[in-house]
């Protein structure tokens, strides 16, 4: 059933794409028709897979580190109100920093390898996670907190046993957003400095005017994003199963 739905959605999107191509009469070097892209996909599948592998690694590392960092910073900020007042603005600022401005600095410190791209993905991922989790932590039902107080919970225990579980649904919501934006984080990272990966491949194809190959890489990226999102979604649902 699920598979059927996925296939039908895919077919629908392809039809829409084709229609768009017809309706707007977009030339193939701007928006190639699905057929052309499919051909490029098949013809260059080895190239695509080799680069996808690099990007996938970056994405997964980015998600893991970004989520962990986000969770940690939300916990920290939630535990210490003064810290929150001082550091929240800094966090907000990190979001407004365009990656390319930071890229040279990141590259200077981390080099052109995996690290700088993972850093980029982390940078993009960790704020949605932090913000959502922090919000969840701040909205714990006061009744539970009072109960914990009468039970002489240490702030740590209160955090761990009450506020964190109560905020899990909010965290899940943040991780979902993070999962959706993680691929773009990795690609932007590759864009700024790389010698492999789907982002690199796209740049290269774009430079060579091989727009169909570029779109094939884009397709690959979308597929990875979807896979990641729904796999994570599945896991997150299990994590908050007590939820309605």
């Amino acid at each position, binding site marked *: 059933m699920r598979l059927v739905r996925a296939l039908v959605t895919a077919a629908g999107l392809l039809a829409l794409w084709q229609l768009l191509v017809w309706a707007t009469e977009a030339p*193939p*070097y701007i928006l190639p028709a699905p057929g052309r892209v499919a051909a490029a996909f098949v013809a260059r599948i080895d190239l695509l897979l080799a680069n996808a592998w690099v990007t996938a690694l970056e994405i997964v590392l980015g998600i893991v580190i970004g989520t962990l960092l986000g969770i940690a910073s939300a916990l920290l900020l939630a535990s210490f109100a003064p810290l929150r007042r001082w550091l929240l603005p800094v966090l907000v600022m990190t979001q407004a920093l365009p990656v390319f401005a930071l890229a*040279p600095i990141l590259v200077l410190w981390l080099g052109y390898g995996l690290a700088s791209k993972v850093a980029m993905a982390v940078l993009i991922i960790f704020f949605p996670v932090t913000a959502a989790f922090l919000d969840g932590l701040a909205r714990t039902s006061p009744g539970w907190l009072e109960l914990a107080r009468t039970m002489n919970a240490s702030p740590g225990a209160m955090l761990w046993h009450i506020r964190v579980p109560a905020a899990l649904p909010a965290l899940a919501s943040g991780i979902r957003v993070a999962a959706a934006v993680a691929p773009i984080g990795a690609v932007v990272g590759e864009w700024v400095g790389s010698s492999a990966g789907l982002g690199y491949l796209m740049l290269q194809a*774009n430079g060579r005017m091989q727009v169909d190959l570029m779109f094939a890489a884009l397709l690959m990226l979308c597929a990875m994003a979807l896979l990641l999102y729904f796999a994570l979604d599945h896991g997150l649902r299990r994590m908050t199963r007590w939820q309605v």
Partner: protein
Amino acid sequence: KLTVLLDWFVNPDHGPLVIAKQQGFFEEEGLEVELVAPADPNDPPKLVAAGKADIAISYQPQLHLQVNEGLPLVRIGTLVATPLNSLVTLRDGPIDSIKQLEGKKIGFSVAGFEDALLGAMLESKGLSLSDVELVNVNFALSPALLSGQVDAVIGAFRNFELNQLELEGKKGKAFYPEEEGVPAYDELIYVAHKDSLERPELRRFLAAVERATLWILNHRGRSWDSFKGYAKELDDKLNEMAWKDTLPRFAHSPAALDTGRYARVASFLHERGLIGAPPAVSTYAVDLNEQR
């Protein structure tokens, strides 16, 4: 009204265009010209091909790739008539010759043909592409070189990056592709849609930029003032230095076409596997003033 898509932000490479606007040469030709800067140099040709703009600034090697991929584009004029691209290392660094690049990192800003260029340069010295590591550094050619992240960069413009390095107190050493086994080409060219070649505005446009080029050559000192008056952000040391270096490289006769040059570059790119069998030059490069 003509929309001209630049290849990059307005900079001294676009001298004749800016001067033609500043000095009213376009107006005198009855043209209203809008200069638009994109962020990705690969976009303008596509948009001209799609009919979204009238003229794009592109690179000659790019044109061959574009034509190969079926874009209905034709070169109608030349802006900068020599290669600008070069392989740059730091003068006080360890690299004195191309030969020493073996096993080193070379940064590039993706344009699609660096590997061909670099490959030819390396092979002329007995190396090959597999002897170096290519790293895409996108916007940051000079910083990558200065900070030692890479040992050389390809794609650096000799009128630009070299000055940049100098402003940072370092001297760059440039290796010129046309001296290292790559056929000479026009760095910057004007391209238009195949079907728009009959438009009289195109010839008037070329006439205006030709006037502007000559005006620049005649009024070197004033030309800089006129150029920097175009937009506030243009007025800085780097542009001033670049302006001097770029002046001699503007095509004195923008509309004129050197067919042989195009044929040579086409077969060079073909040999390096970047394009298929090259079509006749006349299908993608014309001299608008010929036989009409």
